[in-house]
């Protein structure tokens, strides 16, 4: 099962390698990982998407907690969250395809951020399902390159 884990860490060098080393050293999988500073410049937040059975995920959470620069670990499974991913797509835009791309950009509330003679670069944010659907719709036009940030998540309410 997939889990989104939010980890607050000391904002110091080497923490990312401690976290990623924990995963690689124990054969755990990282599907995506985002890191950035929080409101407190001394603290960073990592959002990690991983998968495994309950026992593996329990170990991951405990092992993360055991790292000394790790301040807090939250498993978002079963928690009501808003999650988003940012994606940049370079897609062919020629002939009739141009109109189709523009229509999809409109429907998905995306934005064109760069225009070249034969392609557009599109910026789009959304939940996982929306991103996947968007890329699927663009595929027939010919996607040249995709860059995704990986998922970030925040709990709802409170």
């Amino acid at each position: 099962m997939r889990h989104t884990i939010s980890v607050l860490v000391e904002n110091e060098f080497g923490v990312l390698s401690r976290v990623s080393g924990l995963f690689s050293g124990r054969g755990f999988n990282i599907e995506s990982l985002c890191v950035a500073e929080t409101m407190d410049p001394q603290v960073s937040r990592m959002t990690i998407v991983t998968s495994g059975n309950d026992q593996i995920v329990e170990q991951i959470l405990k092992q993360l907690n055991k790292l000394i620069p790790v301040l807090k670990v939250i498993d978002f499974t079963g928690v009501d969250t808003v999650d988003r991913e940012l994606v940049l797509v370079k897609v062919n835009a020629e002939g009739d395809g141009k109109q189709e791309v523009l229509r999809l950009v409109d429907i998905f509330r995306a934005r064109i951020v760069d225009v070249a003679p034969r392609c557009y670069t599109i910026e789009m944010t959304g939940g996982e399902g929306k991103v996947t659907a968007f890329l699927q719709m663009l595929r027939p036009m010919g996607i040249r390159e995709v860059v995704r940030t990986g998922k970030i998540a925040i709990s709802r309410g409170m």
Partner: protein
Amino acid sequence: MQMTGAEIFVKALADLEVDVVFGYPGGATIHIYDALFRNVKVRHMLCRHEQGAVHMADGYARASGRTGVCLVTSGPGATNTVTGLATAYMDSIPVVVFTGQVPTLLIGNDAFQEADIVGISRPCTKHNYLVKETKDLARIMKEAFYIASTGRPGPVLVDMPKDVLAASARYDLPKEVSLRGYRPTYEGHQRQVESAVRLLLSGERPVVYAGGGVILSNASGELAELSHALSLPVTTTLMGMGAFPGSDPLSLGMLGMHGTYAANMAISNSDVILAVGARFDDRVTGKISEFAPHAKIIHIDIDPTSIQKNVRVDIPIVGDVKDVLRKMIKLVKGKKEATAYQGKTAAWRGQIVSWAKTHPLTYKPSKGKIKPQYVVEQIHKLTKGKAIVATEVGQNQMWAAQFYSYEQPRTFLSSGGLGTMGYGLPAAIGAQVAMPGRLVVDIAGDGSIQMNIQELATAVQYRIPVKVVILNNGSLGMVRQWQELFFEGKYSQTCLPHIPDFVKLAEAYGAKGFRAEKTEQVPEVLRKGFAADGPVLIDVITDPGEMVYPMVPAGAGLTEMLLV
């Protein structure tokens, strides 16, 4: 007051009450060695190899309970400590290793004697540091000792660039350590403890499975008290030898791959297991799906990651073993349930006694060749069970665990988790430095001893009177045993035809050498060797065909033991 990094280092060691540092100098640490030269408080012991230095710090820590300290230079000095770090990490031993590093500006430039030791040691340390500014050095040292010795102990490495040691700053050693990401849980949850006692008392076939955590927590007294209050049979892991007196009628000895028949049968037929400071290692459980099929499990451990890692646990208790055992004792001691419980479990104890009687630890004595088990028994007899015993790894280690009865904690020093050959001699030296009045014996094999034999020079230089007994079977016995049992006796690369003359070797180093070649010589040679001054190496030529039994083959269930 302004001081150089090197002076801060030496002063902080003294203020942290470090009495001895095991080390080896080099270019990156030369400022420290200059500062050490002028100091009177911290003793530096010069080893002959950095691996030896870490094992000495480790042996010092295991024997005394204090944190062991090691100081080496950058690059190869640092990488040579990795095996020692991994050894200490697997066995949760508090050690702090200080490494020199190339100057900050050169880091990453493939400078001379540069190694990314912080990166290399990350998976085999509890935590590690690169000191970037001189002003941080004292604080980091304080934190390093705190992290190494608290919670589940473990090794910490501090990497110190040369320019940081040369530059000056104000000496500022904090009184307290505050790490918001590190707050070990010492107190066991009271309601969990109550549930554990209820579960324990509900059973009829209990076993206590005690590991190294009991020793690390200094909780042997509590373990004995609880065990006696309820007449609980106790089996220990290799790391737990000495946590419960081996001669106690409730002691089952060691369990696992080379455990006693009684211990393995008891675990396999139990209905409640009280696991105390142990981690269900594969050498203990055998085939995990067949491990203790009828048992409910209570697991006490200070490290939450140890719980539910290998086996499903019914009642987990995160906390210091000592605190949790005290709480349990309070709930049962002198209560009438305890008496009723002892009655209810009497038949079970009878069953265990009969297992122990039908298949005790034993070997076939022989007139011709010396049996290694006999040698260990003789060491036990001669030392009256009061020595501190270090071991190397392999058959010698298992026989040392099986045929010497350990009555006190911190008297059996062995690389249990990592299984590091070459551990025993330096560990024995470290233990002897910590415990100058005690008799320290290294039970060795002819293979293992050669992995850190150079430390004999250290022992001679500082007149450290360790007694090394080599069970010399001319082979890498444990691997040979596996080849004998599971690879049709094809002894691939396990015969050691060119073994040095250990007596002459000892003498070449300036130590004393003795040899026994016949069974009847053993007691006298041991007596002479142990009575001799200074470091002694005793070469005992043993039967190469002898194997360690019982044995649970790898991947088999615990009840599938090969017996003598």
